[in-house]
């Protein structure tokens, strides 16, 4: 599904953000990405989403290579992905409903299907009562949940989440995590960057730990308990 092969990413002014990163995520896998601030987690997610291209190496997503893909084919690939950004990226001048519907309209969904789907998504993230609010009338956690609902709108085969629970309390975090697990159970691969070690410990999922732009630990490679003690024990 997703394969990084000796990926390097250099930014003009800040230098190497990723160094020789290689890993593979299979269809239907759930992967945590963790590591200190500035380790390169968001950069990996941006590469998966083709928002950035690698400086060296190859990123392959659902059979499409970052080396050969043409710019005009990127949108088609993205429609298969859902993405939740660290900074939400909601349209400030549209209601919660309209924000989610927008994602469906852009990909040409039949108008009659949009309304019911939006309601269902809002229910899933627990925001049914805020459907007509504007983003700035929502709390941080509520905005984050709108972003999650939007990411799920197009039934993605890959879901990329950059700290989707950073602004949520423990209970809401568990709820969102359960939602992502459910989606994952239906065959969607999920990559989630997070600082929440508690969540990682409890979740028993594959965990990739980064530091200074390199992978320092991947629970798929070794049955170690280095940082995520409960990760591989059932």
């Amino acid at each position, binding site marked *: 599904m997703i394969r990084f092969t000796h990926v390097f990413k250099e930014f003009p002014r800040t230098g190497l953000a990723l160094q020789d990163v290689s890993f593979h995520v299979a269809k239907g896998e759930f992967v945590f990405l963790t590591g200190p601030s500035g380790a390169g987690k968001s950069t990996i997610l941006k590469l998966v989403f083709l928002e950035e291209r690698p400086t060296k190496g190859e990123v392959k997503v659902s059979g499409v290579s970052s080396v050969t893909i043409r710019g005009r084919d990127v949108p088609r690939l993205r429609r298969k992905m859902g993405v939740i950004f660290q900074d939400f990226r909601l*349209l400030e001048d549209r209601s919660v409903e309209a924000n989610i519907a*927008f994602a469906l309209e852009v990909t040409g969904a039949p108008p009659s299907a949009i309304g019911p789907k939006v309601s269902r998504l809002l229910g899933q993230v627990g925001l049914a009562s805020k459907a007509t609010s504007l983003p700035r009338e929502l709390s941080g956690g509520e905005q984050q949940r709108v972003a999650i609902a939007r990411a799920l709108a197009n039934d993605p085969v890959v879901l990329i989440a950059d700290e989707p629970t950073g602004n949520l309390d423990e209970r809401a975090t568990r709820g969102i995590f359960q939602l992502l697990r459910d989606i994952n159970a239906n065959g969607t691969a999920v990559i989630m960057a997070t600082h929440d070690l508690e969540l990682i410990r409890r979740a028993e999922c594959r965990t990739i730990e980064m530091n200074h732009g390199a992978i320092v630990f991947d629970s798929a490679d070794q049955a170690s308990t280095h940082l995520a003690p409960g990760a591989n024990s059932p």
Partner: protein
Amino acid sequence: MRLAWREAFLAFRRAPVLSILSITTIAFSLFAFGLFGLVALNIRRQLSQLEERVEIRAFVVDGTNAEATSAALGDIASFPEVLSVKLVSPEEALLRARRELGEFSDVFEAGILPASIDVKLKEGYRDPATVSAVAGRIKNYDFIDDVRFGEEWVQKLYRIRNIATIAGAVLGLAFAGVAVIIIGSTIRMAVLARAREISIMRVVGATNGFIRSPFLIEGLLKGTLGGLLALLLTWLANSLIGKFVFSAEFFDPKYAVAGVAAGALIGLLGSAFSVGRHLREV
């Protein structure tokens, strides 16, 4: 497409002043073209009417015999530039002077005017150079006293036409440049104002064509409205001038339609050009 139209209308509603500004600019630039077009149209019409009146008058020395004169008339009539030749007797000359001098006509109690040969030139031969060349040839007849052809007047006429043409071209181009800049900058502002929206569209997998289409529709609508407004303004200006200064001719309907189409095209191309350039920045 439905979404694109909705977005385009949303853009109008969200930035009404900006939209009106774009429309007005397109309208004004087309209006400028329209006005100069009208001026050109009417100057050309006036010129061809005035040119018809360009004539050479050769005064015949008193007492010249009729045979010499009529031989000369035949000669002159066979010049390739000459449309018609006419001999004007002293009596006719007096009548004409009275008519032409209008207000002062009755001050001629008994003017004695010389006979003259009046020559009209063909169309295309009425420019100052040709006129004076023909006048020179006529002057060679020894029974011709003096030749008049209002050289100053002919030259002034041509100078006015040239100035109008140059001024029209220069001002028209300047306005077109301003229009292009303003259209470009309004689109740029629209793109920047919607940078977030565009980045989110990209995030949810919208194609570039899809992102571009609301801007193109917006441009097309603004251009069309601008064209219609320009047509209205030009027509109003024409009517006002017609009413208060002198009657002027208006464009053919097919040119009017072409003007509106030009507005639509300016709007569309301006948007297409600018949106392509600025989408890359966002």
